[in-house]
């Protein structure tokens, strides 16, 4: 199997580039899991906004309000010299609340024309949570102001605080606790980018090496039939793809600290395997058109980043525009991500629920077949024009 052996000699020559992609993947996966991944679903925890409060109205009622907010949000005080505008702009603080002078007086008199001012970060989009918290406290206060004439602020704060002790019981549905979905879905999304990038770099390196005119002419007069040679190259490609898939899979498994393999994780791995084959077909097709090493890194970069941006690998599909998604649906990456999103939310594995997942996988395989046929047609035409 001389060709098969040569395949991995070429891969070994490019191993440093490939390792860079693996390292970046490991770093990204760790970031996703450690920083962005929430805790497990075993116990319910409320979302706490980070709020900066500037109060110009120092009354018992305002103190009570701030006290209440402190129980359900993180009251942040910025260090000396830190810019409030910067903190809000970059999403380090969710909301800035300004309590103007005279707010309490206007509330107590029942008028309510002095209002609180809230600026919120566009990054977190959780301002509604803060609004509801403030509304909850002040609605209660108003209930007393309207119905207990002449109530003092102190009495008001005590009574409101007593009412606020009531809280609803929240249960986590029993079926949900098996799969830490949020932690791995980002990793599996990002994995698609790594797979495309690595396969394009690897597969095109091989094709560049074998398609060099002098090598290709020498090979044609070798005592190995072209069919056999292609079969060995194909086997090399397949083994390389499987190895990349397995390595990334193991990395993701270790980094996410999974303890078993549930049906969700199995489906995710299956989906990634299917996608790897589609990515191989893309790499194979790209290899037919790349002439030199300069073009190789350009194509690998633009193709992998382009597919990732339009089909929801870096930015979730829910945030993409409709036109972009329409274009993306002509790429296998779009269907891969769609399947990842469906799988992470699954908890009942009935055929009806799994049907969309299998459909997405079949579409990816369809793309793979189409790209392989295109590549073979392109190479046949090239050979014919070269011979003629």
């Amino acid at each position: 199997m001389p060709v098969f052996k040569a395949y991995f000699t070429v891969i070994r020559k490019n191993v440093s580039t490939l390792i860079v992609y693996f390292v970046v993947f490991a770093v990204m996966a760790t970031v996703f899991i450690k920083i962005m991944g929430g805790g497990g679903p075993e116990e319910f925890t409320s979302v706490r906004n980070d709020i900066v409060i500037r109060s110009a109205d120092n009354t018992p009622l305002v103190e009570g309000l701030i006290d209440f907010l402190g129980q359900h949000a993180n009251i942040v005080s910025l260090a000396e010299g830190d810019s409030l505008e910067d903190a809000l702009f970059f999403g380090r603080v969710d909301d800035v609340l300004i309590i103007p002078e005279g707010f309490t007086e206007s509330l107590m008199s029942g008028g309510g024309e002095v209002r609180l001012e809230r600026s919120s970060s566009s990054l977190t989009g959780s301002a509604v949570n803060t609004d509801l918290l403030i509304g909850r406290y002040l609605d209660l206060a108003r209930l007393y102001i309207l119905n207990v004439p002449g109530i003092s602020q102190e009495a008001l704060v005590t009574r409101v605080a007593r009412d606020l002790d009531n809280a609803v019981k929240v249960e986590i549905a029993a079926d949900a606790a098996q799969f830490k979905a949020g932690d791995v879905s980002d990793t599996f999304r990002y994995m698609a980018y790594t797979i495309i990038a690595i396969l394009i770099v690897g597969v095109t390196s091989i094709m560049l090496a074998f398609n060099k005119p002098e090598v290709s002419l020498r090979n044609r007069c070798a005592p190995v039939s072209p069919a056999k040679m292609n079969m060995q190259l194909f086997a090399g490609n397949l083994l390389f793809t499987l190895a990349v898939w397995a390595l990334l899979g193991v990395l993701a498994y270790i980094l996410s600290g999974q303890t078993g393999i549930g049906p969700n994780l199995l489906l995710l791995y299956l989906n990634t395997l299917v996608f790897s084959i589609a990515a191989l077909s893309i790499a194979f097709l790209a290899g037919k058109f790349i002439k030199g090493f300069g073009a190789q890194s350009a194509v690998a970069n633009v193709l992998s980043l382009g597919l990732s941006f339009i089909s929801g690998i870096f930015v979730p599909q829910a945030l993409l525009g409709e036109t972009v998604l329409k274009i993306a649906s002509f790429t296998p990456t779009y269907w891969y991500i769609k399947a990842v999103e469906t799988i992470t939310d699954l908890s009942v594995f009935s055929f009806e629920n799994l049907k969309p997942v299998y459909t997405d996988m079949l579409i990816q395989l369809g793309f793979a077949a189409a790209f392989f046929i295109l590549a073979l047609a392109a190479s046949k035409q090239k050979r014919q024009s070269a011979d003629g």
Partner: protein
Amino acid sequence: MFAHIFVYRLKTLLRDRSNLFWTAIYPIILAFFYALAFTNINTADSFEAFPVGVVDNAEYRSQAYFIEALESVSQEGDNKLFDVTLMTLEEATDSLNNNKIVGYILFDGGARVVVKSSGLKQTILKGFMDSYLQQSSAVMSILHDNPAAAGSLVLPDRGDYIRPAELAGGKTDVTVIMYYGLIAMAVMFGGFWGRREVEDIQADLSAQAARINLSPVHKLKAFVCSLCAALLIQIVSLLVLFLFLALVLGVDFGPNFGYVALTCVVGGVMGVTFGALLAALIKGSEGLRLAVMLTVSLLSSALAGMMFPTIKYIVVEAVPALSYINPANLVSDALFALYYYGPGPRFTLNLTLMLAFSAVFSLAVYIVMRRQKYASL
């Protein structure tokens, strides 16, 4: 003589398709991808009502006040929080498992909320239920003190206590940081030109440089003339990138286009001299120089907010010094300062630091390269 070297150098560099791609075309392609992906990001975070189930049983039907309160937040309008569906307990469990609802409310000897995970929507659902229970408790306590008030009890509407305000003129579009980071990356990629200039004039780095060292032209003169050609190409590509971002993609740079262009010019000088310095310092193979340059450029632009805007702020918070030594961050921070505060002290500081860096890089390159003697070529 200057014109001669300059013109021919310009022609040579313009035929370097690989460098042209990475410095001039690649940032534009990346910007285009950004634009495709971020078109909706600022409109998508406005709050949307979400589906919630309510288990329809005898206890639920007896809660007249609750039904009323639920109606007030499920009718179309500004106050709408939930899309409510009445269902049996089995349907509710099933819908929750299949993600048709965020959670459901169940009255079973008191109110309960059942959800699948923690999150903002679940928190809002819990908050609504808490609020209902707390209002009921308040009503009970008022009636307890004054049973006669039952007839005249006033239940206030949900109040409107908050006026959304916007700091600094409502500039909240954080994606601009990623585009500024992209310009910072293009600035750093200018280092490829500086690297090429040094490789083509240091006799131990390429055969062509050995030949140039034999020519009867002062090395400094030859180097400065060629470097000017590289600078021209880099500055023009940065300006094209800026105009593409501002005019084609509509990225907001604030009203001061002149200052943005100035940042691009100074950034061009800084990037090219930065690459020249790296190339002059690293003697190994071309591959090693390329690898170091790519790593430094990408890492510094990532820290300047090219991929995740928040990283830029985290760096400022955690290691303030780093944000002033990172050349890429100076570029993105200068552009951010122009966008957010206008041309003021913060912009001036960044620009001054960029100029200082360019001067230091140039001086260092000069010191490394001058009077080098080669024992054998």
